[in-house]
């Protein structure tokens, strides 16, 4: 159950590598298939946010660390972008009709739905560290059979 770490430059072309990293490493930390699927989506959504909004498309380092803590998997995403706490993002309302919906803004909403906790802190050296935490064995929230 050794923690695993992936470092990438902030580029949407690397998202498939981020998903592969979670798919390949979360099972070894004890995540069942439903937990792996939810974590893959939640981490992909957050890293997308960091690339597109945090770094505003200009690039920068991103580190994803996966580790086991008790009966939970923790995905820590670290970046050097300006400090941003996703808890301050406006709530997304999935009930709005087509024409009145904001386009986008759904990533943070999905992370909150898929995982148990989503916690932000500013490390001593600056940037952001966001922890996406999900139980290793709770029923899937992305639906269907594992």
């Amino acid at each position: 159950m050794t923690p695993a770490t992936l470092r990438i430059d902030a580029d949407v072309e690397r998202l498939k590598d981020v998903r592969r990293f979670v798919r390949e490493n979360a099972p070894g930390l004890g995540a069942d298939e439903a937990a792996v699927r939810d974590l893959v989506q939640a981490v992909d959504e957050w890293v997308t946010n960091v690339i597109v909004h945090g770094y505003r498309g200009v690039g920068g380092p991103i580190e994803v660390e996966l580790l086991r803590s008790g009966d939970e998997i923790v995905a820590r995403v670290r970046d050097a972008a300006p400090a941003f706490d996703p808890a301050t993002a406006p709530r997304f309302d999935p009930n709005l009709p087509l024409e009145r919906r904001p386009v986008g803004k759904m990533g943070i909403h999905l992370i909150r739905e898929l995982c148990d906790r989503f916690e932000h802190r500013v490390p001593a050296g600056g940037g952001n560290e966001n922890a996406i935490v999900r139980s290793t064995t709770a029923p899937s929230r992305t639906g269907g059979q594992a």
Partner: protein
Amino acid sequence: MNTTIDRVSPEVAVLALDGELDASNYRELIATGSRLYADGARRLVLDLAGLSYMSSSGIVALHSLALVFRGLQPPDPEAGWAAIHAVSADTAEGTLADQVRLVAPTPAIDTVLERTGLKRILAIYADRAAAIAG
């Protein structure tokens, strides 16, 4: 992600998606669908059977194509949504965008559609023939 176009009639185009739809390729999907609309298609059937993953960027693409096939401008996802209000003031709200139809999403993608409210906007069909005919 690979896309395959099947133009079953001048009005109806089927776009089959294969692979993973994320922030790296969702704009291509909007562009491909928009070209079909510009070329005269008025119904877009998106066959999702081969799609193994979709992030919220994919939801943005489906939402944008629903607007395109209503004859509206696809919004820039980075531009905020004042622009959407501007172009949509005279359109009916709260109705299904019947011009864009989804076929056979996996259970995981189906849940993403549900959790983002997209199933209240776009109808889902079990198979391609039903979506073309209905």
